[in-house]
């Protein structure tokens, strides 16, 4: 069980933040294109950084707590999971903060990121709200 420790930690982060999507209407997972667009470039860059850092011995992973499943250049699969899960946690937090701050200010959801889209939706109708879908 020890060798799943890193993966389990990531699973705890993913499941721990999941309620934000629904309880605070964060709508991160439900905007998959935008999510993918936000994640892809940083994900690639940080995996590259990881590969270089591993090759140059900046850090290494304790074989006891990782599965041993590896991507090219000796990058543990756990690192890929990290660079997906942790940014999603931050995005869920960001959308939740926007939602809560927007509400407590009594300005509807004007302070919330994405408010412009919803205003446009209110004006133009729901069909125009998700272009490209």
């Amino acid at each position, binding site marked *: 069980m020890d060798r799943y*420790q*890193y993966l389990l*930690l990531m699973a705890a*982060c993913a499941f721990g933040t999941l309620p934000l999507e629904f309880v605070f209407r964060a709508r991160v997972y439900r905007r998959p294109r*935008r*999510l993918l*667009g*936000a*994640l892809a*470039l*940083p994900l690639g*860059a*940080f995996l590259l*950084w990881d590969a270089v*850092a591993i090759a*140059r*011995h*900046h*850090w*290494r*992973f*304790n074989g006891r*707590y*990782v599965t041993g499943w590896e991507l090219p250049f000796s990058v543990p699969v756990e690192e890929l999971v990290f*660079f997906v899960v*942790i*940014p999603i*946690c*931050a*995005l869920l*937090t*960001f959308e939740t*903060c*926007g939602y*809560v*701050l927007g509400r407590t200010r009594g300005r509807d959801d004007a*302070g*919330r*990121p*994405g408010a*412009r*889209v919803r205003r*446009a*939706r209110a004006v*133009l109708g729901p069909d*125009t*709200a998700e*272009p*490209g879908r």
Partner: protein
Amino acid sequence: MNVPEYSAAAVGAAVAVAVLDVKRWRSGLFRMPAYWCTIGICLFFMVLVNGWLTKLSAPIVRYAADEKTPWRFPFDIPVEDYFFGFALLHWVLARWVLLGRSRAHRVGAAR
């Protein structure tokens, strides 16, 4: 004197992301209350998660002593990790905001 490589890379990445955002991407994150709220909450949970990953008693990730500063705070978290984390999260948040904005503009243009 050798500059530790991880320290240089982490600070460089954080500064690069912040400067690029202010000068080029213009996400406006630094002026958003929701952003600072996010930073505060993420910092708290980062200490827990990163603290678990790097605790010296049973580390999941081990660092080469000569590629970073000896400073670790709190628990055993290398201070460089905060710069690393900032670069990652600010970059993703900026892209998220910009992608939402470009979508809103397209909706506006459709009028």
